[in-house]
């Protein structure tokens, strides 16, 4: 069964990437679209903890890096989303069912992910992003992610709770 679950998660992430660049490309605000992969990774972190979230962050990030029309050095989104998955997984223990915590996690994750991506771009000069441009895009991306969170997080979290390996009851 782990194989089937893995396949399901990979398909989910690919669907998120396609929707993000194709569907939401038509509803972008100055080119900025909601980062659906990030929302899926945060949902995994909140329900299943850091391991799965970081793993999904890596796979989803590589998908964003490789699916056309991406033109950046591969691995940059992967790095950003691995960190986000790990961080989102850390919050879960105390209060994963609170809406406010979930929204706060999305906001923080969006900020961390876009900033990390911009930083790696500045280091690699791929392209050399001016700080002003990064500061303009990060809040827009954060707002758009928060806007979409109520529609994406609950079904994704429900799915992650349901599709899990059997555990010994405690």
């Amino acid at each position: 069964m782990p194989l089937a679950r893995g396949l399901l998660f990979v398909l989910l992430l690919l669907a998120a990437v396609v929707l993000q660049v194709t569907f939401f490309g038509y509803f972008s605000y100055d080119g900025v679209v909601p980062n659906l992969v990030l929302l899926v990774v945060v949902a995994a972190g909140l329900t299943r903890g850091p391991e799965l979230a970081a793993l999904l962050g890596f796979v989803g990030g590589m998908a964003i890096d490789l699916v056309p029309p991406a033109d950046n050095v591969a691995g940059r989104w992967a790095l950003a989303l691995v960190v986000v998955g790990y961080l989102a997984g850390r919050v879960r223990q105390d209060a994963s069912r609170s809406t406010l915590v979930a929204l706060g996690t999305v906001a923080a994750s969006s900020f961390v992910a876009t900033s990390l991506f911009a930083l790696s771009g500045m280091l690699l000069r791929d392209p050399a992003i001016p700080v002003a441009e990064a500061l303009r895009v990060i809040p827009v991306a954060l707002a758009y992610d928060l806007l979409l969170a109520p529609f994406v997080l609950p079904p994704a979290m429900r799915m992650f709770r349901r599709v899990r390996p059997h555990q010994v009851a405690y």
Partner: protein
Amino acid sequence: MRNPRRRTSRSLFAVLVLASLTAITVDYQGGKESPLEPARDALGTFLGPVQEATAVVARPLQEVPGFFESNKALRDDLTRLQAENANLRSQLATTSELRYRAAELDGLLRASKSSDLALVPARVVTMGPGQSFSRTVTIDAGTSSGINPDMTVLNNDGLVGRVVRATRGSATVLLLVDQESVVGARLGSNAEVGFLRGRGTVDGDGRLDLDLVDNVETPGKDDVVVTFGSRNGSPYVPGIPIGTVEAVFSSPREQAKHAVIDPFVDFSSLDLVGVVVNADTKGDRPLIEAGDLPAGDAATGKED
């Protein structure tokens, strides 16, 4: 007092971070021959049809906000457009002589340079996310239609960009407004040469920066900028209109003058584009020959 579960999650995290860094290093060093390039190609080929189908669903939905446009807004539009029309009519009357000469010169240019060029029609399928800080789009035609990297892409308004990567059924286009995009440009009025750079924004106020090589002549406002062209027309064929001069700056510190260009193309709503190919290209879609662009061409169907 660490629990083992926490330790495994830490080591997995470390492994994944290292994997990402490895991917970055390999792809950065590899450049065009990067080992990740086949993965890009495969994903593009595999997801191309899915992306096209999604675009077909999304395109009509884009019109929805228009339904809520009020009567007043439409009336305002009408008045504005009528004024603009009258303005353009008067301009047309005064410049017919110039237009005639320009048409003659155009014909000459076409005969000498671009008689062996043709366009492959394509539609924009995906747009790169703004969070990635690079302005790229995917079009629904690829190597099977004769499209290869470093080809010029334009639409009926002017220059759009160039192809950077092509799979069988799709191609990635780097837009003119991307920060990495540099185009050799020439001013229409005095044939002065400069380099045009994007600013990375696509919205209505998306502008380009033109650094002129020569400091002698000052470009006038509303001068038209066209492509300068490269060797063998790759990546840019000469004479494609890009935009008009909006403002000119010169500082005593810098040697050259600097102009801000308002592009003709609206990069936030790209749809139908054409890729410049050789006229003898054999592909799976019909070519539009340069020079005789019929209105509402049968090959493109939805020319607007």
